[in-house]
């Protein structure tokens, strides 16, 4: 637990506080509880997708189709609800679709051995295409109020979905820490070859990771539909990229083996806060992407510099040890013909 205090997540959290303070100075409305709550509320979707993506990145893989999976699930949900399907059933259906979509990725990557970037790029196209086919290219304009109710339901003053997300985050975090099979994700990402030799079921682990990514995209889709109230054609567009950005920002290492749901949480909230901040500082919304991209680049660059500094430190420490050894060992004398 103490490792948190040295960590990346803390850093980003502090940056977040800093951001809020600075923006608030420019526009004090930002400091109102309402605004801050609004940020939290808007970040829920990204948080969930980011956690799903995190599973994949932990194993040193990547999934660029989670946005499309979100869109597809959202579409299925919308269509089902409008067709009169009962809410619980419709939700289940949407989740089933997202899990299935994730499984398709999993099969391609673990059994057919297609590289993750290729596989998920392919399914991105397929799922997005399916979305358009199902909706006939038009938006799903109306969603029955049954689901929209949940978006506004406040428990103890906090929205229902915020509670849900919080529970999911905590549950996932605990699971990843304690549950042995969950640690396999880290092992596979840290050293896949080594994991294989250690009897760790690599295939099953990878399969689970991509399936979970799909599942979380599905959960995010439900919240999306409830919050937004309709399903635009571009639902989920670009979410995968933002999720990856959020993860990397929050400390999930792209080379695998490092990162926690807390990373995804903090990164997602930070990115959403930046979007919101831009609004409050009166910067037009289309700059979001530019700023987001710049932040991501800055983050990975800083990350690189830090790693280099750490490596240099380690090297010097080892050199010092060597020097000591030389002093202690009487048989090292310079020249002896």
């Amino acid at each position, binding site marked *: 637990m103490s490792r948190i205090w040295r960590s990346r997540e803390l850093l980003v959290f502090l940056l977040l506080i800093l951001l809020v303070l600075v923006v608030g100075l420019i526009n004090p409305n930002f400091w109102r509880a309402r605004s801050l709550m609004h940020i939290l509320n808007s970040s829920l979707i990204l948080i969930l997708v980011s956690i799903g993506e995190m599973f994949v990145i932990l194993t040193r893989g*990547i999934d660029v189709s989670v946005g499309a999976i979100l869109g597809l699930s959202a579409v299925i949900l919308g269509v089902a609800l409008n067709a009169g399907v009962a809410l619980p059933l419709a939700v289940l259906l949407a989740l089933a679709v997202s899990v299935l979509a994730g499984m398709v990725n999993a099969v*391609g990557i673990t059994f*057919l*051995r*297609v*590289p993750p*970037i*290729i*596989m998920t*790029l*392919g*399914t*991105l*196209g*397929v799922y*997005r*295409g*399916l979305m*358009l*086919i199902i909706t006939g*290219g038009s938006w799903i304009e109306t969603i029955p109020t049954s689901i929209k109710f949940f978006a506004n339901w406040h428990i103890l003053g906090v929205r229902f979905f915020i509670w849900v997300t919080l529970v999911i985050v905590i549950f996932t975090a605990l699971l990843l820490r304690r549950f042995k099979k969950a640690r396999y994700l880290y092992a596979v990402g840290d050293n896949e070859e080594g994991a294989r030799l250690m009897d760790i079921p690599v295939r099953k682990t990878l399969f689970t990771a991509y399936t979970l990514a799909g599942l979380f995209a599905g959960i995010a889709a439900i919240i999306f539909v409830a919050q937004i109230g309709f399903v635009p054609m571009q639902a989920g567009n670009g979410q995968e*990229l933002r999720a*990856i*950005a959020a993860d*990397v920002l929050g400390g999930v290492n*792209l*080379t695998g083996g490092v990162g926690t749901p807390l990373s995804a949480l903090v990164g997602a909230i930070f990115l959403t806060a930046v979007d919101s901040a831009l609004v409050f500082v009166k910067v*037009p919304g*289309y*700059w*979001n*992407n*530019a*700023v*987001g*991209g*710049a932040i*991501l*680049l800055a983050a*990975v*660059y800083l*990350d*690189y510099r830090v790693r280099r500094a750490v490596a240099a430190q380690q090297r010097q420490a080892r050199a010092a040890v060597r020097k000591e050894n030389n002093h202690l060992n009487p048989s090292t004398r310079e020249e002896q013909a």
Partner: protein
Amino acid sequence: MKAHVLKWMKTWEFGLAVLLVLEILVLGAINPTFLNLENLLYSTSDFTHILLAALPLTLIIITAGIDISGVSIMGLASITLGLTWVAGVNIFIAMFIALGVGILAGMFNGAFVAATDVNPLVITLGSLFMFAGVAMGLPGLLDALGFKAYGAAGFAAYMYEGISGLPHSFNQIAHGGIGWAPYPLLIVLVFAAFLGVILHKTRFGRYLYLIGVNPDAARYSNVPVKSTLITVYALSGLGAALAGVVLTSYFTSARSDLGKEALLSIITVVVLGGADIYGGKGTIVGTLLAGFLIGFLRQGLLAMGVTSDVVPVVVGALLILVVALKLFVAAYNQRRLNQKALKMSEARR
């Protein structure tokens, strides 16, 4: 000579060429307009932008890198073209400025890749966002900075509508041609020839293969890795900018969100063309043939009445199938080779 020809027949490129011919025949059978050469050539204008981006991307993939920011650079180039023209610059000079912007954007990517060990996928992911954002925000920014546009209601108006009314001479780029060959096709062929020579005949091209196969050995062999990387990403930026210019001419309107949907097709073309995502393999001819394959496929599907939404489904599925197939074939060949060697060794004892 005969041995050479026979050897070429076993290559991936030959397979693609055969498939291409088959495809045209099949499509022609379904819709005879395909067999009309003039029609066929003019239909290429629909997808030349994909090729323009995919060709230099092949070079990057050979180095085991990747660049997904091309689609944003297309939009950036397009809007730059439009805005500089609206500010009073001659359209063709504006075009070169747009190309220059593409090169600069590419150099930014390349410098980042060369200077850090960060995954090119992440770097170009960030720049994908950044360039797209800048492209979108540029009109508004210029407005806010007080630049004046010729006629019209200030730059901001261009944000959503794009800039139209471009000079006829410029629009001819996408709609004109020499004889049966439309200009975009000629541009692609010239660009392909240029890149082909660079890749297969210069030491820069050789460096690309060396870096892709073994970047450490490349360093130890004094290959100028950093400058090579910066250059190859700059080329990709140039290709994307070219694509943006051609698209602008094609739609007769400069927009910041041009080409957004093209990423999947671009990567599919490169992979289908024989390039290995892990580096060290790939040819210009392969990418070119694959580009036509995918391009005509799209045309064919549309002609068959399939809606444009279904096309990415087919392309996506195709991408996965091709890669899976390649892996199977490689594994099968390897096993066959091993068995053969085993038999030979035992026989010798």
